[in-house]
């Protein structure tokens, strides 16, 4: 619902918005993706003939000895090392959330009577939502075998914001224009969560707990944070050619002990085309130079109470240590009282240009971005804090590069119209300072799925933040990778971590986009492409399944990609090899659209008839890449259980009455 009244002779305008939503969301069992990939394809999905088939709801599952369950009806339990039946994982799972939200905002704008150059503005916003997520997993599902899991999570969220500013415009004379703005902003984020799950001991259980609930304890947490800012901006335009903007912000966050930090920025633009010496140059239709410098702050992805010396209390039912009284535990929280804002300083220079009366136009920008006091979860020296890792400011990062766009109106005639837009970016990313990494790289990123804690990426000063840190593989005369044959890069006679090196990176240094729009009379045809060049991906799908030694050993059979038979490695000892880091540069066609616009259909007398557009769109149409995995576009560079991106076809009709 929206109200837009204008009062006091247009001096006071109000824009009031209220939106209510009720949503029902269905959550599937995401573990089914990994199960589907690992499960033995030669097994039947259903098993209705085994004596204990009912214990598994008629689905085939890998079994193990069930004597520990102490239930004569359960000679077997689910083998929890084996993948679960993916069809059962999806069917025997119910998780649905019902949520209600209210989003409201009020914009109040007031031009001061008699002093109309001054405008006062106030914005209030509220986003309140409440949701209940019910989960029911029966006792036949491997996820909660024998006991089942039933319960709900209740979440309440309240975000409030207030922003007010005053703005003053002045044109002194034709040459000078001036406006200044000052304001204040306040935001509050509050979250509350309550959850409780339990299972049941079946009646057939032989212990004293038969028929009873499993032990459970409700979990309750609550947290909040505040952001308060003061800001001001001044704009000055001279001769409509020279533009100067200065902005300053003083931001405060409740997440840091030292709440406040200053973030200024300045920008200058010169419309060179307006200059006398260029005004009459017809070949050039636009030329503008831009310069900017500014600082912004970041405080995301850390807890809300990082600098407090407080205790964490044990939760649940299984973390008591009964030395005294009931065995409750308090653990001091690891904290960094000096944690502060992460600051990014950006400097950029750009040129906007146009020729041939803007038939061909574009822009080119060079930027340099330095991020200092990077916030990350880093090692703390043993004995100095209450955890080995703590959120702290760990270093600096530099991003520098070039962005260029090009826009070409190839055909502009009565019936035909064709424009092509192209953009390309080159970015170079380097870590310039990192606590604790002065002598040896610090391993990072998600672990790969061979063993525990095996990583293939690392941070080091002078390297990209998304670089791979791997062994150099040696190959035989036919080009096949030899298991365990690693190049001894430092020639010290041992193969260990000192022989790893930085090889490629997962973030693409070059990205490009191309969009074309062709119109002929009432028809329109659009196509858009996207390309990443120089991004590499660690194929963990192949690496995690390459230990052929395990093929029959575990008591169950797992599916493997065909490439592992050709590779024929036996163990997973050498998966940190650059053999698995593959070039994943790609070209994707994101979108193809064909449309036909019409008007005055079914026109009768005074009624203007229907108008609208009929269109067909295909998205995620095709991908061209050398990468042999499912999809070369993997966010963090490690390809494991990626859910395939669908190609979709839409047929649409929009009508105006």
């Amino acid at each position, binding site marked *: 619902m929206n109200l837009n009244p204008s009062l006091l002779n247009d001096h006071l305008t109000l824009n009031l918005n209220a939106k209510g939503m009720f949503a029902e969301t269905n959550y599937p069992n995401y573990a089914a993706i990994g199960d589907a990939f690992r499960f033995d394809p030669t097994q039947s999905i259903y098993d209705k003939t085994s004596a204990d088939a009912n214990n598994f709801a008629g689905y085939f599952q890998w079994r193990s000895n069930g004597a520990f369950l102490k239930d004569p009806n359960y000679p077997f339990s689910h083998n929890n090392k084996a993948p679960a039946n993916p069809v059962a994982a999806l069917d025997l799972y119910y998780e649905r959330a019902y949520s209600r939200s209210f989003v409201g905002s009020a914009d109040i704008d007031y031009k001061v009577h008699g002093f109309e150059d001054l405008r006062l503005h106030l914005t209030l916003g509220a986003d309140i939502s409440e949701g209940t997520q019910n989960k029911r997993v029966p006792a036949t599902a491997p996820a909660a075998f024998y006991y089942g899991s039933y319960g709900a999570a209740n979440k309440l969220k309240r975000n409030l914001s207030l922003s007010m500013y005053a703005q003053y415009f002045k044109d002194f004379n034709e040459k000078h224009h001036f406006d200044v703005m000052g304001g204040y902003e306040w935001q509050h984020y509050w979250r509350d969560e309550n959850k409780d799950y339990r299972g049941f001991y079946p009646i057939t259980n032989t212990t004293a707990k038969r028929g009873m609930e499993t032990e459970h304890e409700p979990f309750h947490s609550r947290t909040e944070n505040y952001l308060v800012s003061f800001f001001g901006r001044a704009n000055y335009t001279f001769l409509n050619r020279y533009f100067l903007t200065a902005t300053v912000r003083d931001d405060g966050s409740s997440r840091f002990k030292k709440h406040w930090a200053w973030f200024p920025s300045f920008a200058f633009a010169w419309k060179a085309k307006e200059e006398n010496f260029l005004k009459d140059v017809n070949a050039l239709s636009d030329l503008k130079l831009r310069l900017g410098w500014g600082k912004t702050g970041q405080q995301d992805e850390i807890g809300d109470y990082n600098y*407090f010396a407080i205790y964490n209390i044990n939760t649940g039912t299984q973390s008591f240590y009964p030395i*005294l009284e009931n065995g409750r535990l308090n653990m001091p929280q690891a904290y960094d009282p000096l944690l502060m804002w992460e600051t990014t300083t950006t400097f950029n220079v750009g040129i906007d240009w146009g020729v041939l009366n803007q038939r061909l136009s574009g822009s080119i920008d060079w930027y340099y971005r330095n991020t200092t006091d990077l916030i990350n979860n880093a090692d703390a020296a043993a004995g100095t804090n*209450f955890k080995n890792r703590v959120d702290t400011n760990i270093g600096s990062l530099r991003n520098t590069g070039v962005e260029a766009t090009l826009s070409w109106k190839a055909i502009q005639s009565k019936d035909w119209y064709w424009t092509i837009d192209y953009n390309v970016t080159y970015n170079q990313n380097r870590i310039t300072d990192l606590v604790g990494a002065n002598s040896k790289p610090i391993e990072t990123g998600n672990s790969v799925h061979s063993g*525990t804690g095996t990583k293939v990426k690392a941070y080091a000063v002078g390297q990209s933040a998304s670089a791979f840190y791997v062994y150099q593989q040696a190959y035989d005369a036919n080009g096949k990778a030899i298991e365990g044959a690693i190049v001894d890069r430092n020639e010290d006679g041992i193969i260990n971590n000192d022989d790893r090196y930085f090889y490629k990176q997962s973030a693409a240094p070059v990205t490009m986009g191309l969009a074309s729009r062709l119109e002929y009379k009432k028809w329109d045809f659009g196509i858009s492409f996207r390309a990443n060049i120089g991004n590499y991906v660690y194929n963990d799908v192949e690496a995690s399944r390459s230990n052929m030694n395990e093929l029959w050993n575990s008591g169950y059979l797992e599916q493997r990609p065909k490439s592992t038979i050709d590779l024929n490695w*036996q163990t997973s000892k050498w998966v940190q090899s650059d053999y698995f880091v593959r070039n994943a540069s790609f070209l994707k066609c994101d979108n193809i659209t064909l449309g036909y616009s019409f008007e005055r259909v079914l026109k009768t007398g005074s009624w203007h008839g229907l108008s609208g557009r009929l269109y067909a769109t295909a998205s995620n149409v095709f991908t061209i890449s050398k990468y042999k995995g499912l999809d070369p576009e993997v966010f963090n560079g490690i390809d494991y259980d990626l859910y395939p991106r669908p190609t979709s076809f839409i047929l649409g009709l929009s009508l105006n009455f």
Partner: protein
Amino acid sequence: MKRYIKHILPAAAMLLSVGLSSCIGDLDVTPIDPNKRTELDPVALFNQCYANLAIEGLDGPGSSIVSAEDNGTTGLLRQLFNSNELTTDEAICRWGDPGVATMNTNEQGSSNAFLALLYNRLYLGISVCNHYLDVASGVDATRTAEVRFIRALQFYLAMDAFGNIGLPLTVSTEKPVQHTRKEVYEWLEKELLEVETLLAEPKAKKSTDAGYGRADKAAAWMLLTRLYLNAEVYTGTAQWAKAAEYAQKVINSDYKLFTAGTANYSAYQMLFMGDNGESGASVEAVLPLLQQGDRTAAYANTTFLIASTYNTDMPDNGISGTWAGNRARKDLVKKFFTGTPPTGNTATILAAANDDRALFYAVNRTLEIPTANDITDFKKGYSVVKFTGIKSDGSAVTNTGFADTDFFFFRVAESYLAYAEATARLNGGNATAQGIAYLNQLRQRAHAAARTSFSLNDILDERSREFYFEAQRRTDLIRYGYYGGNNSYNWTWKGGAATVAALIATATSSPCPRPTSL
């Protein structure tokens, strides 16, 4: 115009300032999370000092106060097992985690992730103890003494594993200064001798008795025994007489060897079963680490010892975990047999060994682990069924996911062995009469034949038979000079070769871990 400026601007300014002053103060928050508290609870903090030895975290198994990739690997006992057993002639592991696989062949380096977890777990425990001593030392003198003991125990384990460690006695952002092993030894000796007089009198307990799990004088004596027994390794000067003296104090105390087996289970077996805290076996436990599946559960304590040693083709172990990881090297099994060890189930092996302690399982197993690839095959090498979640009275576990089996960190049997070894070293390498008597008491408890004499090597073998898989072996091998360096004591896969090979000049301690992950 004037009218408006007179009225509206002041009103707007007032509104702004009122709004501002109330809102800037909002940035000074106090935590509203019910799982956090600002006031000190000395009882809870005291419990936490002990809990760090036995469980991983505060939010149930699967959570941990030590940050790691897999929280279930951060527990103290698990990492002590890995660094003290996998690197020796007793245990070998199937898993491919680089932290574990390199320990199988003594190739663990300074970037070993599991050594880092051991280091972090110990220092986290030390920090909690330091914090208790900073804020709650006035509450109760005996509790303060116990916290000092636990802190000393963790410093000892760190010094034994890593050598020249830092010795922070308070929690501050100043980086701890590195001390030499000798300095740490001297501090430990002084601290333990002081604390010993303040601890409670030694008293054997069952899990239902008050104070079960707390350290008393006997715990201090046992730690002092270990300190003195290994003094030559730590400082260069041996202290055999003192080691024997403190071992004797434990033997003379209220704690005794447990000898009352039942019809179905031997006394030795019952020390490692699910009800070892209730059945009376705890008469031997000088410092038990508590475990109870429904209340005090962890992945890295006895649940790890039980689940990692069992496979799905073995008899029931009482809980749901059968992770098929750790098993015995040929060298351990052969300590129980003079000829070729037989295959077959546990009963067969026990009968052939004539020793209750030969708790192996060898149906569908081979004794040998011939090639490097065979290390990852659980069926190569005998399985060990010493630890189990089953209870001797047949009752059910409290939670099928986690064991109720307590872990006896210090057992009186260790004092018997320490006394025998220390006095033997003062007696030209042969056990004295009293030493022989004590060792025969251990053998008698295990229904093994008594012997008339024991050389130092015999005592080392007896230690292996009594304490295998209890996370002590590496220290013992180093003390005898059999671990690193050019010596003739070899075992399968020592240093990485299938055939027996010498491990060339290795340090007697692991290198201190560097920060390895972000």
